[in-house]
């Protein structure tokens, strides 16, 4: 019974909610709203579980005198300050986030700057990671490097013109490298590399011709839009289809009681 009952409840709720989603008519809409309210209540309890788990984790760190216990102390003190301040603001103003509430002051002057600061650090990490990751190691990584450079410069004003010296350096460098590799081969393999290297060098040097550089600078934002609209959309769509098919399969396994991990 301990297994059958939860499986039965899951089965009935799963099938009912699926049916409700596809029939947007009365009285199904009312029932759907009722279930979504239940969802909010259940997720509220999940929040309580999360708080319990977070506090216990940090309390244990303090108790066993962990070297990072200082951060745990800060976390627990901040948690209770925010909680008690929230209750007090609720008592005084009727709601903690109402206009004029002191809790709103705490939120605006402490939480918001901290949140913005944390996110702004991302720019530095991305820059450092991009420098290390974008290396022309093979054909795939070179394609990734080129498309990243085009999108980066295509998504800023004047980017097409800023891109030109990079284009020149990249073409000359890559062309010379391929030309150099050609010297290590003989016959057909060597000729192909010489031709490819020469083409890259030619297009690199062509940047000095204003007609070509103007066209190229105008073309970079167009190319960037094309990358976002077609290869990117195709990739995103493939990921989404895979993700949703996986979610459907997993949901069906739970609804039909094949997957019972949540009972344990």
């Amino acid at each position, binding site marked *: 019974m301990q297994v059958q009952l939860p499986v039965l409840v899951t089965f009935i709720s799963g099938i009912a909610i699926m049916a409700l989603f596809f029939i947007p008519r009365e009285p199904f809409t009312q029932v759907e709203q009722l279930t979504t309210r239940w969802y*909010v209540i259940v997720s509220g309890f999940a929040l309580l579980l999360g708080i319990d788990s977070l506090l216990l984790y940090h309390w244990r760190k303090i108790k066993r005198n962990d070297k990072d216990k200082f951060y745990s102390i800060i976390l627990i003190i901040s948690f209770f300050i925010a909680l008690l301040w929230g209750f007090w603001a609720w008592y005084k103003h009727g709601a903690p986030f109402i206009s004029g509430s002191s809790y709103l002051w705490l939120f605006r002057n402490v939480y918001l700057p901290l949140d913005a600061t944390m996110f702004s650090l991302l*720019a530095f990490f991305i820059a450092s990671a991009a420098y290390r990751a*974008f290396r*022309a190691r093979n054909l795939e990584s070179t394609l990734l490097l080129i498309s990243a450079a085009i999108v980066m410069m295509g998504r*800023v*004003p004047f980017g097409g013109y800023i891109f030109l010296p990079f284009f020149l350096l990249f073409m000359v460098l890559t062309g010379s490298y391929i030309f150099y590799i050609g010297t290590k081969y003989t016959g057909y393999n060597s000729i192909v590399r010489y031709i490819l290297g020469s083409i890259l060098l030619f297009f690199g040097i062509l940047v000095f011709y204003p007609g070509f550089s103007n066209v190229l600078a105008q073309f970079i934002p167009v190319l960037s*839009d094309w990358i976002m609209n077609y290869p990117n959309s195709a990739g995103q769509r493939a990921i989404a289809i895979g993700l949703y098919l996986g979610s459907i399969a997993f949901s069906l396994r739970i609804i039909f009681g094949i997957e019972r991990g949540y009972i344990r």
Partner: protein
Amino acid sequence: MRKLLEILELIDRRIIYTVLIFAIIIPLFLKIPLPDKPSQEVVNAYNAVESLKEGDVLLISTDYGPSAYPELQPVLEAVLEQAFRKNIKVLLLTHWRHEGLIVGVSAIEKIAKKHNKKYGEDYLILGFRPGVAGVMIGLSEDFRNVFRTDYYNKPIDSYPIYKEVAKEDGIINYNDISLFFGFQAGATGDSWIQIVQARYGVKMVFAVTAVMAPNYFPYYQANQIFGLVGGLKGAFDYESLVKLRGLASLLIASQVSVHTIILLFILLGNVGFILRRVLR
């Protein structure tokens, strides 16, 4: 020579960080005006708002917090500027708890004050309710199902804007919304499209952070959304279209310099990498 190439290939991250700090800060002081050619998806978003007539209703959802403030707040302010210039009624809500509310309220109060718009007559702040899907489905029947009271804890049907938007039937639902403009820094936008656009056919436009933009292009390409404003460049484009020099117009120069610096570092890393291979 080998030593130099190794240095190029393994530049210390603290050097990168230091150069970046200057690349961000210096353009902020120089205030360089940059030319702009708005991308088509931003022009479509602008046109969607521009096509609204006086008295039409614009529903805005500010589903972002201060972390996305530099990218989304300029668009929100520009959209509100455009809406209030055209005397469009604005309803504002959020799924991002109080962060979304704070950024939304600060923008709408600032722009409404500039245009002498009155709360409860020209705009209404619905506020926040938990349960993303539940809220979206609840709004489809009657906004009062979810937002019985507004941000200031007063019944929403006590305001003149409610009676004006609700018309004869006395209820506001998605049928009364002329356009939805979502400001997204998370996955809530997917729910807006998958639940509200797909089921109720609401016309939608989105402003999203640069990291989220690639996820929204399939929706844009499939005409599920009419326009897309992505990242700071999108915000700058939108400000240019509205002819407003706001935060994005100031920050875009920093973005140009940072992108250039990152590309320069990538190029240096590759010079070191390729030449070291040649010399080996």
